[in-house]
């Protein structure tokens, strides 16, 4: 088996060329066959005409006695006549007993036997020669035969090679024309195949660039409706998803390393101070305290960041069940209400049913996050209001507080990771700057939206809208 080149373009081209070559060869061959048939026919007709002249030549009328059988010419006489014959073809005359009278081979050899002439031999023309002619190819000769009803026969023949002589030029011409046709048809084929395969090259080029690291690269789709265009579209979507996933990873890594740097710096700084030389025991204890605090802070960060990374943009991890937001809110309120009363805040609820398909644990966490913020950023003697219900095909949870609110220029950023309205606040309230980002990612994983309405100094209202379950 011949090893074909691996490129699809070459493979298609080779098969295509083979098909074309076969077609051209078949055409050429049939053309030559037709021509050779014509040549045979022509040669046959010519021999038939010559056959007419053969009899008077071999049996001149002078040798025939009127009313009786002819007298065959003597061998010497015959030899002399045949040496001067006008025709070049091979001739055989045989009797009905299958004995030859005359055999002239195309090599020039002549045999003649007057002994074989049958006693009742009649002049060939008398017994119907040269009638009942048949032209056929026998071995390597083209022959014309004629038999009398009695079975006497004459065979005239020429070697096929001489019949086909004019074919030589024709064969060369046919091969040349065939080669020209092959070139003209197959070479543009190579170009055409390349053109057809161009989208594949575009796809593979884009894939190469992407694998080289540029994930923002896309396949250029000029023919979107072709099969390859559809493939390119699908691949582009895949790349888009990959890029987004990678961006989330990069973001997560950057966030994590950024937030972890300061506590690590604190641990390193204090340990290096303590280890530099001997210190009082109290100073060592202080260092251990610094390590513990920083480690706690980091572990909390890691846990929350992990949660965020998990939920970002995907809902595959949700364990959805049919649940009533009223019930969910009641559970969350059970946790927060006592804390609110402890802080001297009033807690109001307006809970109407709102059916959704949601993850009880995660969505509960989202509601608790909002309530926690309301608790954290409230004012003395303030209030928190929690409401649920259904409105225009959406089920909603709303948490409103009488807290410090969010300045208008910062309201767009509250859902961003690590954003704090006032960075110094986190020290007193223990926030990591991730609560609202986590809440948002949980809500969005559910296919919902979260919005905030706030007036600086007068309080905030957070509203989660989820698709209602019918």
């Amino acid at each position, binding site marked *: 088996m011949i090893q074909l080149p691996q490129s699809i373009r070459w493979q298609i081209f080779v098969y295509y060329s083979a098909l074309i070559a076969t077609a051209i060869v078949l055409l050429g061959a049939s053309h030559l066959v037709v021509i050779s048939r014509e040549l045979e026919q022509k040669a046959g007709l010519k021999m038939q005409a010559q056959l007419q002249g053969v009899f008077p030549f071999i049996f001149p009328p002078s040798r025939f006695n009127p009313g009786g059988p002819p007298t065959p010419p003597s061998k010497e006489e015959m030899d002399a006549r045949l040496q001067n014959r006008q025709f070049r073809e091979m001739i055989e005359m045989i009797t009905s007993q299958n004995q030859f009278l005359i055999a002239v081979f195309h090599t020039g050899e002549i045999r003649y036997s007057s002994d074989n002439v049958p006693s009742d031999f009649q002049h060939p023309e008398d017994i119907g020669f040269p009638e009942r002619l048949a032209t056929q190819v026998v071995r390597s000769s083209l022959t014309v035969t004629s038999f009398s009803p009695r079975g006497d026969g004459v065979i005239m023949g020429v070697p096929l090679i001489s019949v086909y002589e004019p074919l030589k030029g024709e064969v060369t011409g046919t091969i040349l024309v065939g080669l020209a046709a092959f070139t003209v048809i197959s070479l543009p084929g190579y170009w055409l195949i390349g053109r057809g395969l161009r989208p594949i090259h575009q796809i593979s080029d884009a894939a190469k660039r992407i694998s080289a690291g540029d994930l923002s690269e896309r396949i250029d789709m000029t023919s979107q409706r072709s099969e390859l265009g559809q493939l390119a579209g699908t691949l582009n979507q895949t790349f888009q998803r990959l890029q987004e996933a990678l961006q989330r990873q990069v973001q997560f890594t950057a966030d994590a390393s*950024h*937030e972890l*740097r*300061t*506590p*690590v*710096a*604190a*641990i*390193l*700084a*204090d340990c*290096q*101070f303590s280890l*530099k030389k001997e210190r009082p025991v109290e100073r060592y204890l202080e260092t251990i305290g*610094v390590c513990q*605090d*920083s480690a706690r802070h980091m572990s909390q960060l890691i846990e929350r960041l992990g949660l965020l990374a998990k939920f970002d943009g995907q809902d595959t991890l949700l364990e959805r069940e049919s649940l009533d937001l009223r019930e969910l809110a009641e559970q969350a309120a059970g946790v927060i209400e006592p804390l609110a009363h402890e802080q001297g805040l009033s807690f109001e609820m307006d809970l109407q049913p709102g059916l959704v398909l949601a993850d009880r644990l995660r969505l509960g966490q989202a509601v608790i996050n909002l309530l926690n913020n309301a608790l954290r950023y409230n004012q003395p003697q303030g209030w928190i209001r929690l409401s649920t219900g259904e409105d225009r095909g959406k089920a909603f949870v709303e948490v409103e507080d009488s807290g410090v609110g969010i300045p208008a220029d910062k309201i767009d950023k509250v859902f961003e990771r690590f954003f704090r309205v*006032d*960075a*110094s*606040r986190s*020290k007193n309230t223990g926030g990591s700057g991730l609560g609202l980002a986590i809440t948002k990612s949980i809500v969005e994983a559910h296919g919902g939206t979260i919005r905030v309405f706030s007036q600086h100094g007068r309080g905030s209202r957070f509203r989660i809208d989820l698709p209602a379950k019918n």
Partner: protein
Amino acid sequence: MRVLIVEDNDHLRKSIVDYLRDESFAVDSAADGEEGLYKVLNWDYDILLLDVMLPHRDGFEVLQELRKAGKTLPVLMLTARGELSDRVHGLNNGADDYLAKPFEMEEMVARVRAGIRRSNGKPAPHLVVGPITLNTSTRMATLHGKPVELTAREYALMEILATRREEAVSRNYLYEHLFDERDDTLSNMLDVYIYKLRQKFGREHIQTRRGFGYQLTA
């Protein structure tokens, strides 16, 4: 040498203060941008260590404000973001050096010293005044090639004088750069140190210029 450190993480700030005091720097600290800016505008520091992410005013804002006010002291930025964009941003705003968190304390101290040296126009770690040589990285002093034993404060005073050699350094300046906000100094503390240095290096090198201050001469 007096240093101001502005950092909002309580633990980190305290560790840096302790470490620098251990290295005989006078150290003041601030926990947010507002306080930091107030201190740097009202006292004379040899170098400022400035965190980027700060409450109230971030490090870049503080940097911009203090440069606007004409303060030329060297500024070493402490940043949790090691990215290039931050560096470019800070250097364009007039920061002199960068340190990405977390960092080695020894490196921090080395950069603080280098920053101070550069700002005094003496980038080499050796300060030479006649027969007196100070090695600012090992904090050792020699007189005619022989080591001279100095306490941390004595060395610090000597270094200030050597940095501003052939110049009268006022008592006020010396107080500001030798003692930090923690020190509850008596006014004659400085006289005690000057007396001791004269004993160790010789009267002729540390001269009193009446009405101006003290001067280190070859």
